[in-house]
């Protein structure tokens, strides 16, 4: 101990300043041990791994610009008469929230830019999370040990939608006020306690004077605070689990191949933050978003046509629009199914994909860690389920914009609504079947490629006059990639009777699991992989066809 102190003392003054600062920090925070594990941490490279980064960076941009906006925004529903520089609104009564948003847009220099960056970044954030989630889903990156991290990511997406909604409600313009009125209708539709919830949330009857001041802390503190916590947990787990990688030469389930954090990944990822921020800044300079000055202040008796929520609420909007108006009146009470069913279906459909990792884990019974990503074709049932889910999602997005589809494509709004009503149920089924078949076709093509090589497009004439296409053999790496995946056996219930001939009891859940497992791992899910015997027989053979 004392000798160590002596050497430290001898060195003091000689070490470079950076090292001395690091020494100071290490003595208190233990940063050297932290850096030893992480400074040269390996990150695999693939373009699709940047989707999550886009989400992360747009979240940071939203926080930065959001803090700026809080300096100027007044979250108040007190009525004022506008006397600012924007002529069309002069003399118009509006809430302070709306008036201060006009001030940010027309009087604060750069305020409009920051407002537009904030809103654009929010759209990019949700979009990036959605696409990132789909990347993780279709490549099976959510499998053990990453199920919990998938759940964190999913919650971020879900809370992101809520935060976005509360955010675009704050300016108290005609469009966002209409959205809040819709929320009132949703609260009212809740059986038994609906009117109470509505009164408590709005501080009385809609719209009241309390809502914007109440939404404000939810939007700037509560939801972002929870999201920041989830985000940090998400990133810690990414570090802890180490990133997944696509199959390739030298890549195994036991290693991670890529570039070290310092310097390459740090430079690329750090630089990418500036790329994302730069692109969003330019978009905000040239593309107007949410021009509340043309929409006008909110009045509950006014509305504009073509009212649309931000894109990520389009799915919920669609459910509400295409649902038939069922109301059950009995014993002096009303059950408003026409609003209540869609609003329950909205989170249920989302949570169907949110809990998917646990469902797949139960079906397959796979308890191993997976760090090599699946090619989507090699997991046909999962891929088909994902496409079916996406189909339902996008059909409802059409439903959410049924008025715009009608006006832009000269279609009947009634036909579109009926198309969506049927398509929401039929579309996923068709998509499931089609996707599964496409996956099987792609598996067949992989097998052909491995056994017969890649088509070169070169036509050769044989001595006896026959034309054949020359096939070039794949490299060993390519063959490895096309054959490295597993084709596990489906879970089986075992014999129906035990060794004494007595029928065994098999629970309904086990039967269901066996059926689903057959769908995942049965003979309809896999084209048997080419074996090396097959390969050797063909390549040692005679000619190419």
């Amino acid at each position, binding site marked *: 101990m004392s000798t160590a102190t002596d050497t430290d003392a001898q060195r003091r003054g000689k070490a470079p300043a950076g090292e001395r600062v690091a020494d100071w920090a290490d003595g208190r925070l233990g940063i050297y041990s932290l850096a030893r594990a992480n400074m040269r941490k390996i990150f695999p490279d693939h373009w699709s791994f940047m989707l999550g980064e886009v989400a992360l960076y747009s979240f940071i941009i939203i926080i930065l610009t959001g803090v700026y906006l809080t300096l100027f925004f007044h979250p108040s529903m007190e009525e004022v008469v506008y006397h600012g520089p924007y002529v069309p609104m002069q003399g118009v009564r509006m809430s302070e929230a709306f008036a201060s948003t006009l001030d940010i847009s027309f*009087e604060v220099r750069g305020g409009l830019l920051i407002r537009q960056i904030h809103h654009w970044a929010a759209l990019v954030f949700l979009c990036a999370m959605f696409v990132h989630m789909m990347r993780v889903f279709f490549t099976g990156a959510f499998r053990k040990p990453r199920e919990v991290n998938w759940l964190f990511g999913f919650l971020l997406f879900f809370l992101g939608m809520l935060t976005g909604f509360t955010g675009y409600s704050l300016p108290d313009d005609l469009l966002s006020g209409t959205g809040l009125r819709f929320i009132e209708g949703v609260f009212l539709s809740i059986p038994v306690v609906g009117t109470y919830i509505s009164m408590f949330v709005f501080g009385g009857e809609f719209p009241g004077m309390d809502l914007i001041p109440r939404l404000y802390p939810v939007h700037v503190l509560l939801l972002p605070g929870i999201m920041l916590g989830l985000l940090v947990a998400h990133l810690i787990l990414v570090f802890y689990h180490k990133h997944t990688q696509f199959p390739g030469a030298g890549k195994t389930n036991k290693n991670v191949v890529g570039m070290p954090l310092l310097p390459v990944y740090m430079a690329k990822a750090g630089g990418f933050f500036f790329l994302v921020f730069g692109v969003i800044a330019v978009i905000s300079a040239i593309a107007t978003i949410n021009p509340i000055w043309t929409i006008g202040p909110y009045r509950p008796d006014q509305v504009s046509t073509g009212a649309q929520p931000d894109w990520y609420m389009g799915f919920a909007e669609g459910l*509400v629009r295409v649902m038939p108006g069922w109301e059950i009146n009995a014993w002096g009470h009303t059950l408003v199914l026409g609003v209540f069913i869609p609003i329950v279906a909205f989170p249920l459909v989302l949570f169907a994909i949110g809990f998917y990792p646990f469902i797949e884990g139960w079906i397959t019974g796979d308890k191993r860690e997976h760090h090599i990503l699946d090619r989507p074709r090699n997991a046909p049932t999962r891929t088909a389920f994902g496409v079916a889910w996406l189909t339902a999602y996008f059909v409802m997005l059409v439903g959410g914009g*049924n008025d715009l589809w009608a006006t832009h494509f000269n279609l009947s709004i009634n036909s579109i609504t009926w198309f969506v009503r049927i398509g929401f149920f039929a579309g996923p089924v068709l998509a499931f079947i089609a996707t599964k078949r496409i996956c099987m076709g792609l598996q067949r093509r992989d097998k052909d490629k491995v056994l017969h090589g890649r088509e070169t497009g070169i036509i050769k004439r044989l001595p006896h006059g026959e034309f054949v296409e020359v096939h070039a053999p794949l490299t060993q790496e390519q063959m490895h990639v096309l054959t490295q995946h597993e084709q596990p056996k489906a879970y089986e219930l075992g014999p129906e009777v035990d060794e004494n001939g007595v029928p065994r009891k098999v629970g309904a859940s086990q039967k269901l699991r066996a059926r689903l497992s057959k769908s995942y791992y049965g003979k309809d899910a896999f084209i048997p992989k080419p074996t090396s015997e097959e390969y050797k027989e063909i390549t040692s053979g005679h000619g190419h066809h």
Partner: protein
Amino acid sequence: MSSHEISEAEEKLPEERAQGGATAVAEDPFADPGLPEHEHRQQDIDERAAQRSERTVALLFTVSMLATIAFIASYVALPVDKYIYVFPIGHISALNFALGVTLGIALFAIGAGAVHWARTLMSDVEVADERHAIEASPEVKAKVLEDFRTGAQESGFGRRKLARNTLFGALALVPLSGVVLLRDLGPLPGTKLRHTTWAKGKRLMNYNTMQPLRPEDISVGSLTFAMPEGMTEEDHDFQTEIAKAALMLVRLQPDNIKDKRELDWSHDGIVAFSKICTHVGCPINLYEQQTHHVLCPCHQSTFDLSDGGRVIFGPAGHALPQLRIKANDQGYLEAMGDFSEPVGPAYWERG
């Protein structure tokens, strides 16, 4: 750290790299060939190329600096209310355009410079790192379980059932205080949603002119909006009251009115319906003259005003409430009472 080190001597230049490995069919033709050899980039072997890359990176960083200066210059120089024409965007705020573009370039150039630096000048040798199982080893697990057992035993949590159960009870009850505190978030609903400002004898005021409406003000084919007499925009509760009281009027040929009650409640073919959609409360504002259908622009619920405000399409669950009107002695339209049923979206107590 790295388990796979590649010595400089083993590396090959791109053109020397062997074509594929398919010819080397060993025991298993599909075996993992292992990490490929590192390929040198031009910058790794040609210092002049590396210097060119460095100059490109420096140029990008310089562009960023210039853009930041331009940003500050535009902030100072451009007035906030100056509008310019920019092809093909149109007339836009000069300041917003200048600030956004310069900020965008300043940021993008930093990112582009950093990424170019990483791609061309930093080492691009791929290295492999080992993964370790997340699960703890059996020894660690056994130790943890043992520790837990000891701790639990020492606490007496399992043995002192009375203490434990009362603790559960206390912990379950204490959050109720928080719930109770939420009571004053708002008033109880009572019958608030059943009433509007409309009352017997209140005249119908034109929504735009704030003048009382006469039957002759309302022509066939037009949609007129009205609010109750005595209500002004300056009222403290105007927003809350208009959210329920908003009214729309159309004139039909009396023999076109299919619903008997609607005819009774009309005046000379003029019918007054709540403007608030019965779906989720958007104001209805689209009127089809020929069919007498009104459409809510939010979710496209369609109501037939010639048939008691019946829902004919869309997600609304019940007909629009009608307001009973008449012309008074002075010839103004007036309400004969409040709406007979709650306006707006349905709710549990509506019945």
